Each structure stands twice: as structure tokens, then as C-alpha cells.
């Protein structure tokens, strides 16, 4: 019999720290012949539902995943045949769960790997005969995942009831049942991710927050004056786009806020592009889509892109490209009220700008009390990268731009 040249197609790198996705739908069947770019599967990541297109034209030899299954980056999704080989019958799930060659490691090491969320297949064993040791597992756990083992499928189960990656840090919980009835609710995929990433950021980054207020009376008037003009061009002007513009310009002058710290290398990675994340409260939870090259984008275009992106996110149609590559995040909590909040930095970024609700307040100007529209801002940043004075200067520069919208529009 002719050897079957099965070409595996693995879950591609999803970027932005996303390491897994849940299969929502399989859009092809074994034996189907598909074109390049034809949709193969629909997967839900922590942030969006996306279609995975076929990387090549060919015949689907085998589908290795099923709806509801969580797959990791690098795990085989489908195999392509050479178009002439007979199909393989679908494997019995019990048979397929039998591992032909287990990774050599003691049971206690394997348990440690599970506790630390390390895939043993990705670990090079340093012990006798290639045995994976506890130290190997700990070293892998401490290194950010850059590559995943391709080839072998890694069947992982549904997310409900799975401990968070950060669970090892927490002391055990008391038995709440002793004080009254409780219900255990599994976390949604998105909730888990938010929980894990917030814990990561809050425990890893020494946060410091700087508060200030911007007088946006003029900016608000400018927006109101031009609302109709904007509408005729199909966009609704909002404060957010001006804030994004002001932040983008200011990041150009303060590049160390547009960066990521590489503690292992002892280096600051300064990004020569300005892609801003905007926190959006979707029904399923907090999602941060990214607008690219905000510094180079005309304001109307930025406003249009912002509107379209928010709509895609709320409808669950954001693509992976929409969700990765951010360099700095703006979170506007104004719609829900409040006088200010201290957001947590969107790891591995360096800073995040929180914007609360603008209010008319009495302000003393040239000896007289006048009503002015004041916008509370909070800049939270990584104290390893910047000091309080840097943060104050950065925030002041943003405020200056918001208070002089003409300069902002002229690109000054």
C-alpha cells in the first residue's frame, strides 16, 4: 500500500498570550476536499469566535478534534491526505486516549506538571535516559511558552471545574458549607482567562497610580460643534477617539510607556509602533480590542475604526487580529459613573490609562468661580519601568493635549 503522506495542521499561534481555544464547530468532514482558505473550524478563544481557514488545498484525511474540546496552540486540528489514500475510521475515544509512548517521568513529577500547567511533551528531560525531572518541569513553568510541541494531539477537557493556572499560590479555602448552603459554578472560558491574567499582572508588576484631571470644556464644545459634520460622514464623534489620539501622540514623546519589560534579559523592549487597546465591556466579560497605528491615523478614520471594532466585539465577531499586538491600553469607565478607578495593567504592557466620567465642577479662574467640565484620569504604570515623576510628566502631557484640542488636531 502506498504510504499516506498525512500533513498535520495545528492550531496556529493566537498571539497576545492566548494559548488555547475551544472548538465551537467543525465545518468540514473527513474525506472532504477543501480549497485553500476555505473555513475549516470555528473556534472560540478567550476573546472572540474566529474561523480558522485552511492553510492549503487538499483532502481532509482526519479530524482530530470535536466541538466543545479545548485545544492548545500547536495541537493538531486536522490532517490533510494526499488525495488518494483511504480514510482512517474515526478512533474510539478510549483507544485514542491510550498513549503509545508516555513521557518518562515519575508519577509525582507528572502530578507537579499538572499542578503547574506544564505539558510534559514540551519538556526536554535532563534525567537518566531522558527522564523529565521536577527541576525540568519547574524550569519550563517559569519560562513563557514560545513554542508548542507539534504533531501529537493533546486532548484537553472542557474548562469547567479546572483549576486556574494561578491556583497553586492560594491557600486552601474553608468549608463554606458549615455556615450555609453554597453552589459551585464553573468559570466561563473568558472569566478564567481574565482571572489568570489579572492575577499574573497584579502579582508580577509593582503597580503605581497617578491621578489628575483634564479640563475638557473646550474639547467637549468642539465635539458638540462637529457632531453633525461627523454624522454626514457616517461617524459619531466621541471623547474616546480624542483621548486615544492624545495618548498616541504622547507615547511618541515618552516611548518607555510604549514598551514591555523583559526581566529575564534585563532589557526594556521599546515598540516603534503605537497600537492602542480599548477596554470594551461585552456581555461575556471584559475584552480589549486593539487599534493599530493610532499615531498615524486621521481622527475621523480612528473614530470610524473604533465604532466598527466595538460593534464586532459586542457581536462576538472580532478576529484574532483585532485582539492582539496592543502596546498600551485605555479603559473608559465613565459610562458607569464613579469618580475614578485604579485599573490593572494589561500584561505585558507597561501602563494603562483609566478615564472616569467628566463632570461640570466649579473652578477658580482669574479670581472668579466658573463652571468647567473636568475629566478624572488615572495613569497606572509599572514602577519597575518608570518612576512617579515620569508618570506625572506623561499624564500631564496627555492632559495638555486634551485641554488644547486645536493642537491635537493639527498634530502639534
Amino acid at each position, binding site marked *: 500500500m502506498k504510504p499516506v503522506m498525512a500533513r498535520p495542521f495545528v492550531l496556529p499561534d493566537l498571539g497576545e498570550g492566548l494559548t488555547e481555544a475551544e472548538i465551537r464547530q467543525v465545518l468540514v468532514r473527513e474525506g472532504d476536499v477543501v480549497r485553500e482558505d476555505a473555513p475549516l473550524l470555528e473556534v472560540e478563544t478567550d476573546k472572540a469566535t474566529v474561523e480558522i481557514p485552511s492553510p492549503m488545498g487538499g483532502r481532509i484525511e482526519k479530524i482530530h478534534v470535536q466541538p466543545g474540546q479545548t485545544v492548545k496552540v500547536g495541537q493538531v486540528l486536522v490532517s490533510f491526505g494526499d488525495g488518494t489514500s483511504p480514510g482512517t475510521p474515526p478512533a474510539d475515544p478510549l483507544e485514542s486516549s491510550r498513549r503509545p509512548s508516555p513521557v518518562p517521568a515519575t508519577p509525582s513529577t507528572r502530578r507537579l506538571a*499538572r499542578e503547574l500547567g506544564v505539558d510534559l511533551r514540551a519538556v526536554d528531560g535532563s534525567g537518566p*535516559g531522558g527522564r523529565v525531572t521536577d527541576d525540568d518541569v519547574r524550569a519550563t513553568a517559569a519560562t513563557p511558552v514560545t513554542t508548542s510541541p507539534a504533531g501529537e494531539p493533546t486532548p484537553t477537557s472542557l474548562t469547567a471545574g*479546572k483549576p486556574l493556572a494561578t491556583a497553586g499560590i492560594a491557600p486552601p479555602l474553608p468549608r463554606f*458549607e458549615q455556615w450555609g448552603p453554597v453552589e459551585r459554578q464553573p468559570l466561563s472560558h473568558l472569566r478564567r482567562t481574565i482571572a489568570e491574567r489579572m492575577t499574573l499582572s497584579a502579582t508580577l508588576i509593582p503597580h503605581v497610580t497617578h491621578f489628575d484631571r483634564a479640563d475638557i470644556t473646550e474639547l467637549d464644545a468642539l465635539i458638540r460643534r462637529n457632531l453633525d459634520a461627523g454624522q454626514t460622514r457616517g461617524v459619531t464623534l466621541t471623547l474616546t477617539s480624542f483621548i486615544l489620539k492624545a495618548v498616541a501622540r504622547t507615547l511618541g514623546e515618552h516611548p518607555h510607556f510604549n514598551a514591555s519589560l523583559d526581566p529575564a534579559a534585563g532589557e526594556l523592549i521599546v515598540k516603534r509602533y503605537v497600537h492602542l487597546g480599548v477596554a470594551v465591556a461585552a456581555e461575556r466579560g471584559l475584552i480589549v480590542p486593539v487599534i493599530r497605528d493610532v499615531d498615524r491615523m486621521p481622527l475621523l478614520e480612528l473614530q470610524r475604526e473604533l465604532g466598527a471594532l466595538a460593534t464586532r466585539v459586542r457581536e462576538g465577531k472580532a478576529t484574532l487580529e483585532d485582539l492582539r499586538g496592543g502596546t498600551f491600553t485605555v479603559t473608559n469607565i465613565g459610562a458607569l459613573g464613579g469618580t475614578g478607578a485604579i485599573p490593572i495593567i494589561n500584561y505585558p504592557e507597561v501602563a494603562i490609562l483609566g478615564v472616569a466620567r467628566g463632570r461640570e465642577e466649579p473652578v477658580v479662574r482669574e479670581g472668579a468661580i466658573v463652571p468647567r467640565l473636568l475629566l478624572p484620569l488615572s495613569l497606572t504604570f509599572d514602577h519597575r519601568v518608570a518612576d512617579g515623576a515620569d508618570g506625572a510628566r506623561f499624564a500631564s502631557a496627555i492632559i495638555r493635549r486634551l485641554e488644547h484640542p486645536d493642537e491635537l488636531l493639527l498634530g502639534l
Partner: protein
Amino acid sequence: MGDLVREVDVAVVGGGPGGYSAAFRCAELGLEAVIVDTAQRLGGACLFDGCIPSKALLHVAAVLAEADRAKDFGVDFGAPRISLDPLRTWKSERVVGKLARGLAAVARGKSVEVVGGRAVFEDSRRLRVEGEEPQTIRFGHAIVATGSAPSPLPGVDLRSERVMDSTAALQVPEIPARLLVIGGGYIGLELGQVYAALGSEVTLVEMLDGLLPGADRDLVQHLARRCDRMFKAVRLSTRVTGLRDTGRVIEARLGEGETATFDRVLVAVGRRPQTAGLGLETTRARLTDRGFVATDERGRTADPHVWAVGDVTGEPMLAHRAMRQGKVAAEAIAGRPAAFDNVVVPAVVFTDPEVAWCGLTEREAETAGRVVKIARLQWAASGRAATLGRSDGLTKLVADAETGRVLGVGIVGPGAGELIAEGAVAVETALLAEDVALTIHAHPTLSETLMEAAETLLR
């Protein structure tokens, strides 16, 4: 009047080793667990109809064989006289009963309640218990541990007292003069030897061309030789195509047309999972093509609230696999990162001589095209075996050709079931043959054969 409704964290269906291990571990982890068992007792087929009573009877057989061998060194006990009533009482009371009382005490100590009745799923969160204590149990999670039951002989439908399954044979209703054993797997071999030792003339029939299909042939060889001496006949590649009860005896048709007469028949052609009437279809759990409950490596089915452990989840149907699965499922339910990632599930056949193996067999390595080194040590070279008068043994290691890692161990000989534990540790912990060879093993013991076999791989 409304039914009794109760709420628990975990409801376990079935009180066998898988079920009670899961419930006990749940209790240790602070979860309230109840076990629903049709007989309202803990132990399951293992304790009442399987492992334990068969080993009790095999011990009797071993004592008889040992007494007989003693003639070789000048000790003659004379012909044994066997009284069935005391034998049954010893097995049921002193062995099974004692262990059952022990398990019940453990359950009480851990506050695990055992409810009598048949449990039927009503949906993914509720079980209806039918029986003397009808009630509804609302659970956070349910663990299906309903086990397996002996398979009937395909194509032969005869209900007769003279045709026994393993459960009936373990009651030892009599010592039949002529016994037909259908099936050359571990159950047929173990019970065939029990009855042969008690005085029955045993004919064993196996459909395939060898005994113990899963084991390597060189291990089976010593057992086959012993069976040839103990049994009247061992018929391989032979099918039983018909059984007829004449009222006094059973007429069996073997293969094409040959007929033979027996006083009793033992059908030991395997076991099948028990899922019928469970109401699993009201949950999202599903069965495999072969009728097992499909689970992931933690024991969870496609239904997030329904789990399954033990024989009902697949091969090998062994109590020790079920016990580990039960603990894994309990830990996973409690939110721990547990998984059934075990490399070895040791298999032991408690015959004379015992056959035991774990990990990769030589035959599996061949089938998988895996390059391995094999070490064989015949017990003729063992001092301890000589002192026991038993050179009918073999210890073998299957090691990775490149790294020397121990991938599998097979042992035949008296005590193989105990000796295999070292092999299980070696394979499970990924030891190298060198590690086994360089560990001092006490002299003179049978365990030395593992060290000596490993040494042959170092040259």
C-alpha cells in the same frame, strides 16, 4: 406524599472498588458523598464474586499442590479429605465477610452513607433510587461505577444449574466429577485450577490458539505445561457450538460434531460493562461502540456533572485500575489537577504458577515496531527457586534499546503476582535497567531474578 429528596456533593452509583475508592476520597477532600448500591454493601464483584473469593479458593488449591509436592522431599500427608461446608464458611465468613465488615466500618468512619437500591438517572443533576428506600438524590456530580458482569456464551442459550458463570462457580456448589471450562483467559484458568485441585476432572476449551491472549508466549509456556498436567485436556482453537442439559449431565458439542459429556460447565468468556437501565441517555454521557461509558483522562463523561470509573469505562477490567480511577475522579471533582496518567496497570493471573506482567509486552513492542532489548532469566538459575523446588519460572524485562529504560516486565512462577510490583515501580517511574541492576536485592530471593535479568542488558 412526596418522595424523599436529598442533596449531596457527589453521588456514587455502585459500591465496588471504583465506587468506594471515589467516595472515600471525596470524603477526605471535604465533599459529602453517598454510594447507591443494589445490595447496599461495599466491595462489589471484586469482594463478593471475583478477586477475593477466587484467591481464597486458589490458596486452598496451592496448599493442596504444595502438600502433594512435599512427597518429593519425603513428606507424605496422605490423600487430602475435603469438606465443602467448612471451606465455604471459611471463604464467606472469615475472608469475604471480614473484609466487607471492614469496608463498612471505613465508610462509617468517613461518614459515607450507603443507600440500598437501583439508581436511575433522571437528568444531569438527579438520580432516582428504586428499591426499599425510594428517594431522589440531587447531586453536584455523579460517578458511575456499576462495573461489569460475566458475558454469556455467544450463540448458546441454556439456563441450567449445571452451567455456571464465575459468580456461581465461586460458591462451590459441589465438586463435579467432570467439569468443562469454556474460556482460556484468567478466570477460566484460575477456576479451572481450583476445581482440578479439589478433585474435578477438568477439560478447558479455548477458541483462540493460545491461553491468556494478552500475555507474551514465553510467559504462558510454564503455565500451559502445568495445566497440561493438572487438566484432563486443554483444547485450543476449539469452539463450543452447543450445550444440552439431559437432566443428569450436560452434553457439549465441541467444534464440528464432536460431543462430550460433563457434570458441570463453567462459562468464562469475558465480562461486559453494566450500563443497561441506568438512564444514562437522560444525561449528556455517551457510550463507545463497545458499550463502555466514554470518559476523558479524569473520568469525566461528555456531561460535566457525570463521571465514570472502573470496568464500566473499558479495559483492562481490573479492580486496581478502578480504585485509581475513583481517586482521580474524586480529586478532579474537588478541583485538583488529577488525571489517570498511569503508564502501567499490572495484570496478575493467580494460577499455579502465577503469571504477571506490566507495561509494554514483547509482542506489543513488535506490533508497534518499537526497538527494544529483551532480557530473559530462567528460574533454573535462581537459588531461591531451587530451594522451593520450583524452577518453572521466568523473569523478563523489555527495555528501550536506545536509553535502556525499562518499558515492561513479565514474570511467571510462584509469587509472580507479588514480584511484579517492583516491575510496576520501575516502569511507572521510568527507571533504567541499570537502576534495577545496581540496586542490591536480598539473597536468596526470587526478586533477585529482576536484578539479574537487568544485569544481562548492561554488557
